[in-house]
C-alpha cells in the first residue's frame, strides 16, 4: 500500500486561479466528450463522502436522452464535523459556479441549482449577488445556462441526493428507491448530475489545468487532494486541504494535542479509529474515506458520550420512513442507555451490533446504512467505556 506523508495543498482556496470568463469561453469550445475523458482520467471521486467517480457520473447523465436535464450542487453540508463547503462557498463561489456550468455544458443541461443548507442562509445575499453577475456572463457567452439557489430547511436527510430532489420538488425529504439513479431520474425525474461543492471546484481546476497535476497527487485509489474539517481536541481546529492517502498517525501528529485517544473519520456516520490503529489507517478510499470531517478526541472524552451523541443525532435525523433506520436508531440509543444503567446485560451489546449490521444492509438509504459505522467501531474499540 502506498503511504503518503502529510502534505498541505493549495488548490481549492487559491485566489486568482479562476477567471470564469476566460475559462468558460475556452471550455465551451471544447468537445464535451473530451472534457469527460479528462475528468475520468483525473481519477476524481465525489468529495461528499460516497466517492462515486465524477467523470462517470457526468458521462451517464450526458448519455441520457432528455429535453430537460439538471446540474445540482449539493451544498446541504449536514454531516456533523464538516464545515468546508461553507468556507468554499464563502471564499471561492465562482469556482463552484464554473464547475456547474462546465457540467451543464457537458451533460446538456440548461438549469443548475445550488441546494444550500438552511443553516447557511446567511450566505444567500452574497451568493445571489455573485450569481447575478455569473448568470449575466453566461448570457454574454451565449451559453443557455442559469444557476439559482434553493434553500434547505435543516433536515440532515436532505443531503441524501434523492431526498434532496424530493425536497426541491416541494415534497417531504425522504430518500427514493434506487434504481433509477439520479443520472437517469433525479430532480423532477429528469437526468441530473448532482455533485458536492468541493467536487465541482476540483472539476473546475481539472478543466483549467488538465488531469495531470491532479493525478500527481494522492494514491492509486484516491487521486488528488481533499479539504478536511478538523475539529475536537486540537489546538489548530480549522479547514485544511491535504493530499489524500496519508496515514492517520501522521494526521494526528500534525493536528492532535499529544493526547489523542481516537479520531472519528467521516463525521457521525463515519468510523471511529482508536489510537492503536492510527498507524495502519489510511485516509482515502482504500482505507477510511471521509467527506472531510476529522473529529479528534483526547483521553478526557467519554466514548459513551460520543456514541450517545451520534445516536441521538441519527434518531432525530432519520427521515423515519424505513423500519431499520427509524426503529433501529432508537433501539441502539436506548440499548446503550439500558446497558449503561445495568438494565440490560453487557452482552446485549452483541445483539445491538447484529442489529447495526442489519441496518447496514437493510436500510433504504445511506443514512440508516451508515449508523453501523460509528456504532460498531466505538463499541468494538471502547466496549468498557460503554458498559461501565
Amino acid at each position, binding site marked *: 500500500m502506498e503511504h503518503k506523508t502529510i502534505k498541505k495543498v493549495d488548490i481549492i482556496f487559491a485566489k486568482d486561479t479562476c477567471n470564469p470568463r476566460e475559462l468558460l469561453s475556452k471550455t465551451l469550445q471544447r468537445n464535451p466528450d473530451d472534457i469527460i475523458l479528462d475528468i475520468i482520467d483525473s481519477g476524481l471521486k465525489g468529495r461528499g463522502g460516497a466517492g462515486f467517480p465524477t467523470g462517470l457520473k457526468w458521462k451517464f447523465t450526458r448519455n441520457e436522452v432528455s429535453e430537460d436535464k439538471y446540474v445540482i450542487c449539493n451544498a446541504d453540508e449536514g454531516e456533523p464535523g464538516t464545515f468546508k463547503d461553507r468556507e468554499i462557498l464563502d471564499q471561492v463561489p465562482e469556482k463552484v459556479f464554473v464547475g456547474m456550468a462546465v457540467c451543464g455544458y457537458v451533460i446538456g443541461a440548461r438549469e443548475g441549482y445550488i441546494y444550500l443548507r438552511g443553516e447557511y442562509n446567511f450566505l444567500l445575499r452574497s451568493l445571489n449577488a455573485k450569481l447575478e453577475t455569473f448568470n449575466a456572463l453566461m448570457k454574454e457567452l451565449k451559453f443557455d445556462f442559469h444557476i439559482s439557489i434553493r434553500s434547505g430547511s435543516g433536515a440532515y436527510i436532505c443531503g441524501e441526493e434523492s431526498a434532496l430532489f424530493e425536497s426541491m420538488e416541494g415534497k417531504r425529504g425522504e430518500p427514493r428507491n434506487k434504481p433509477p439513479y439520479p443520472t437517469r431520474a433525479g430532480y423532477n425525474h429528469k437526468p441530473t448530475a448532482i455533485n458536492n461543492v468541493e467536487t465541482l471546484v476540483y472539476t473546475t481546476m481539472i478543466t483549467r489545468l488538465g488531469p495531470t497535476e491532479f493525478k500527481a497527487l494522492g494514491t492509486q485509489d484516491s487521486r488528488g487532494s481533499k479539504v478536511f474539517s478538523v475539529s475536537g481536541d486540537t489546538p489548530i481546529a480549522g479547514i485544511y486541504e491535504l493530499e489524500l492517502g496519508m496515514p492517520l498517525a501522521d494526521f494526528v501528529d500534525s493536528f492532535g494535542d499529544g493526547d489523542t485517544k481516537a479520531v472519528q473519520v467521516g463525521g457521525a456516520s463515519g468510523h471511529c479509529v482508536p489510537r492503536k490503529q492510527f498507524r495502519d489507517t489510511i485516509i482515502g478510499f482504500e482505507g477510511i474515506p471521509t467527506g472531510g470531517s476529522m473529529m479528534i478526541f483526547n483521553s478526557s472524552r467519554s466514548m459513551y458520550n460520543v456514541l450517545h451523541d451520534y445516536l441521538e443525532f441519527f434518531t432525530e435525523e*432519520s427521515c*423515519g*420512513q424505513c*423500519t431499520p433506520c*427509524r426503529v433501529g*436508531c432508537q433501539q441502539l440509543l*436506548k440499548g446503550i442507555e439500558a446497558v449503561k444503567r445495568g438494565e440490560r446485560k453487557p452482552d446485549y451489546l452483541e445483539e445491538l451490533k447484529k442489529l447495526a449490521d*442489519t441496518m447496514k444492509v437493510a436500510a*433504504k438509504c445511506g443514512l440508516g446504512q451508515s449508523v453501523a459505522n460509528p456504532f460498531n467501531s466505538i463499541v468494538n474499540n471502547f466496549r468498557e467505556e460503554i458498559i461501565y
Partner: protein
Amino acid sequence: MSNYMVNLKINNIPVSVPEGSTIVQAANKLNFRIPTLCFHPDLSVAGNCRVCVVEITGARALAAACAMPVAEGMEVFTNSAKVRTARKHVIELLLSEHNADCTKCFKNGHCELQELAAEYRVGDHVFLDLVKASDKILDISSPSIQKDNSKCIRCQRCVRTCEELQAVGALAVACKGDHQRITTFMDKSLHNVVCTNCGQCINRCPTGALVERNYMEEVWDHINNPFKHVVVQTAPAVRIGLGEDLGLEPGHRVTGKLVSALKHIGFDSVLDTDFTADLTIMEEGTELLTRLKKAIVDKDETVTLPMTTSCSPGWIKFIEHTFPELLPNVSTCKSPQQMFGALAKTYYAQKKGLDPKNIVSVSIMPCTAKKFEANRPEMRASGYQDVDYVLTTRELAMMIKQAGIEFTKLDDMHYDSIMGEGTGAAVIFGATGGVMEAALRTAYEIVTGREVPFNNLNITPVRGMEGVREATITITGTRPEWSFLEGVEMKVAVAHGLVNAKELMTAVRDQKASYHFIEVMACPGGCLGGGGQPIPTSADIREKRAQAIYAEDEGLPIRKSHENPEVVQIYKDFLGEPLGHRSHALLHTHYKPRKRY
C-alpha cells in the same frame, strides 16, 4: 410493461419476466412468496418497511424486492441466512414500536403484522418496548373511523391511499426520526379535518391502526331487547362481498344466505336497501328530467347542470370540502340508506302499526362513510334519527360468526315485506356506473316509452373500471310531453375513486367539459370496493365482485326501477309522486359547504 424478457435466477431457479418487473413479481412466477407489508397492489411502491429484503449476488446491501427491478443475469436469494436475519430483525423492530396487545385488537386474526410475527415465530421480545403512552390515546372523534397510533407501523399505505386514490390528503406523514408519525393537519382529530370517512385507508391498513368504529354490541343489545322492533336493510354490494369474510372466494353471490343469517341473528325484519335504490332512481331521474326541462324549455338560468349523484356519502363530504361552489350541482336526493331510514320510521311504521320510537333501524353497508351520514343532523326527517346504526360488511361477518352460524350451509331466504323488494337496476348501484345505468334505463323509458337501446338492457359504455368514463345517448322518438328532448344528445360521465372525481369535477368547474348527468362514487370500483368491504382488496378482487353484481342483475325478473311493484305501491299509498310534497320532506336533503382545514 415491456415485451422484452429478462432472464434471472431466484434461489438458483431460472425465470424469465418482462423488463420492468420487480423481484417480487418474478418470485411470484416461481411460487416463492416474499413477505411484504408496505406494498399494496393499488398503490405506488414505497419500499419503506424492508420486510421484503432479498440478497442479490454481488450487491453489498440487500434489496427491497417490491421496489427492485429485475436485471439480466441477476441472482437473487429470498431466504438466505443474511435475508432471514435482516427480515426477522425488521419484524422485531416493527413489533417493538407496535402496541402488540393482540387479543384486545379489533384486527386480531386479520392483521398482517400478526401473521408475519407468527410465521417467523417471534418469541421473546429481544428489543426494548418503544410504544409511547401518548400514542395509546385513541382518536374516536369520527363516527366512522378509529385511529390508534400505537398500532401504526408507518408503512404509509393509508397516506398513499388518501393521496393517490382519493386525492384527499387527510392523512400525512409528520415529523422525522423517532417523532415521525402518520397524522392529520395540525394533529386535529379525524372528525375535524378533510377526511371523507371513505375508509379506503382501513381497507389497506395492515394492522389495527385504522379500523371502523364498530357498533356490534349496541346492535346486539337492541336485538335482545323485546321492546324494540329492529329492522335491518342491506346494501347491494354487501351480498356480493360478505362471502369473502366467511370462507368464500371473491365473486360469490350470497343474497339468500345473507337474509337467512340476519333472520337467525334475530332481526325482526330483514329488508333491502335495493327498494330505496329503486326509489332513488324515481326521485333522481325525475329531478334530472325536471332540471333539463327547466334549462331547455323554460330557459331558467338558475338551473344547475350537470347534475351529479348523491348516493355516496364519501363523495358528498368530499365535494362539500373541495368544490363547495358546485354543491348546487348535486342531486338533492338522499342516499338509498337514508331514504330507507326516513321511510322505516314513517311509512313502514304506519303500515305495520308500530310506534316509530320503538323501531331501531340498522343498516348493513359496504361503507364506513355511511356511519357518518347516518349521524348528520339533516338525517332526522322521521322525527327520530332515521338510521340508528350502520354496520360494515365486516362487522356483519363477525356477528354471524359470533352467532355460531355456519354461513355456507344456510338455506336461501327471501327479504321480508314491505320495503324488501328490489330490481336489477338497484343491485347494480353497488358497482361504479350502476346508478347511471339504472337511471338511464328508467329515464329513457319515461321519455320515449321504449327500453334503452342496448342489448338486454346492459348499458356497457358506463360499465368498467377506467377512472372516468363518458357516454353519449341520443334521445329519439320522444313522447309528446318530452318532445323538447327530441334529438338531444345526453352526455353522461362516471367517476369512481375521489382522485378521478376530482379530475372530472375540476373540468366541470373550469367549464372544460360539459355533461348533463354525472355519477360519482367515492370508492374505487364503487360500493363493491367500499371502505367497509372485506379485506384485502385489489383490482382483481373488485373485478370479480363487479361480475357478481352484473350476474345478480341479469338473474332478477325485474331490472328497471320504475317497475318495482313496491315502488309503484309507495307512490300510490304514501308519497304521491316523485318530487312531491312528502318526497321532498322525507327523501331529499341539502348540503353544507365545509372548509379545507
